[in-house]
């Protein structure tokens, strides 16, 4: 059990600014992981396709970077929280 005093101290320590920072952090972390995950899947498939046909580099690059927009959304949200 956490007594009332600890809660008060904790609330004091994590003020509004702290919560905002944590929120911004979550926004970046989540979207960053999500883009990374998606790009990993697409990237490995793209490399596989490139091994068959080198001319697919351009298309592979494009497909691989498409999920990157997710993290940009995260960044925008993080900045808005600030």
């Amino acid at each position, binding site marked *: 059990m956490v007594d009332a005093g600890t809660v008060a101290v904790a609330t004091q320590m994590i003020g509004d600014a702290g919560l905002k920072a944590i929120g911004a952090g979550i926004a970046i972390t989540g979207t960053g992981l999500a883009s990374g995950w998606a790009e990993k899947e697409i990237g490995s498939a793209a490399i596989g396709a490139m091994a068959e046909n080198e001319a697919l580099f351009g298309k592979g690059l*494009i497909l691989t*970077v498409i999920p*990157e927009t997710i993290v*940009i959304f995260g960044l*925008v949200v993080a*900045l808005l929280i600030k």
Partner: protein
Amino acid sequence: MSRPKRMTKAVIVGHKSVLKRTIDSLHASNLLHIEDFIEDESGFKISKPFQNAEEVSKKLVKIRSIANYLGIERTTPAVQKTNAVLRELDAKLDKLDSDISEKIKIINKYETDLKNIEAQKKELLPFLSLNLDFDYYRGYENLKVFAGSVKENLEEGLISRVTQAYELFFDVNTKTVVLFVAKKDADKVAEVLQALEFKELRIPERGGVPSELLKETEQKEAEASRKIVSLKAEVESIRSQYTDFLLASDEVLSIENQKAELPLRIATSDNAFIIEGWVPSDKYDILINSVNDATSGRAYVTSIGIEEEEEHIPVEYNNSKSVAPMQEIMNLYSRPRYTEIDPSSIIFITFPLIYGMILGDIGYAIILGAMALAIKSLVKSDSVKPLMNILLYCQISTFIFGIIYGEFLGFPLASLHTEGETVAGLLPFWNTITLFPGISGEEFTFPVHRAHMVMTMIGVSVAVGLLHLNLGYILGFINISKHHGLKHAVLEKGSWMIIELGVLFAALGYFGVISGLTSVGVVILLLGIVMLTMGEGIKGPVELPSLMGNALSYARIIAVGLSSIYIASTINTIAFGMIWADHSKIGLVAIAAIIVFILGHALNTVLSIIAPGLHSLRLQYVEFFGKFYQGGGKKFNPFGYIRKYTEE
């Protein structure tokens, strides 16, 4: 804004007796992209290669395998006359071939020898410490010889316990054991040895004392190595002597081969031939003249109207010299189709522009610009030059934005003076001027202090993005109206611009900038959506959110830029923190600080090519090209050869 080079379809018809001359002149002119003939009902057949084809390919294979073995590199060409090369080719090639193959054979023999010697030496080494003549190891009737190695020390007591008739040789260092025992006790002794993990060694078949044998073997080894070295030196001298010959003859024979095999790609009957192909329209006359000259007018050249699907037409870029490097970026994606707009000249502006907006730093622009110039002058390779030119264009734009942002290696040059705060800059006399209020309480200043007006810069980035996207829609509009008519263009691409207009009006009205505009905006928006649905079907409205995604994607301009600034300023903080930490003496700390500064900025310089480059490229490929570009054009590949090592 340009289109690919206009092409004319040329058909050349003639009697087979002039085929060779026609092919020679076509090859020399290097203008005609030949369409391969596919046999059909017409009765025409592809022909056989010229008689010399087989011989030429044989020689070519020989030359290439020799060149491959010698490791011939493409050097600065010493141009030779084709005739001279051809005249000497057979004799020289035979001599070279016999020289080389003889030497290769001997080298191979010595190398095999060397391997055997190596194996023999390995066999000898364990016996070296005991130094018993190998003849003593065999030829007994009542004695058994154990020769091998054990894991632990072999005490004599262990053996004497099981047998009295023995002779033991043991080397403590290598743990090699040679043991002679009476045959009847052999089993018991074997058990004892087994307990010590005895491993039998093969006894060399030669007789003699190991140390002497080793000396002999080493002599042989040195001999063989020396011979190999001297032979390789001879091969090396052959290489330098024949490099020019090999390069030139490879080229001459490749040309002969191309010509000899052309009949496989054209239509022929018993007595006539037809060659079909594409020639740039402005060069058509040159082609006619060269064929007429070569055949004294006996081959008939004509152009025919383009009626078949246009995707067969090969595509040759039609750009000025300064725009040409951008074609590399186009090729990486996909060559434009014949009927499309070739956007090279547009990305000539937009790619460096966005790169510069991202990086925007005077210091990095100077470093990278100097690097690009240096590589351009040092590396002669044709594939590197366009890339360096692109890098150079990008650095010009980076330099300009560096002045706009007032940044030098991550330091702000001008000191920031806004209502809220003052941040010192590098140059004491340069102060920012507040131009107008930005988004969410920020102030828009000159020079633009990016790190202090992030929200405003996101707004600016997205606005630049919208301009870029709309440019894409306009190009798409032009492409479609040319191909499918104005109505389709308005419905498919114009509708997007109407939707944007509707959103803009609605937003202006909603935020009370101009009252009463909201409903007008909504009406326009709905109109746009209806038009889009008419143009693209249900797929259109489904893709609506992508417009927001695309526009927001341009926020990376400021995001990637900020990351570069923060890396640079972190390096600066660490380096200068170290120097200022200890004022009294300039010693190790100062040197370490300089190293941190140099290494850190070197790292950030490399990142400054990759990150802004890739992100700028992505904005072109995904967001911009997605609005209008199809690609997939066939490369214009004329029948001919660009000579480097020979001339007619």
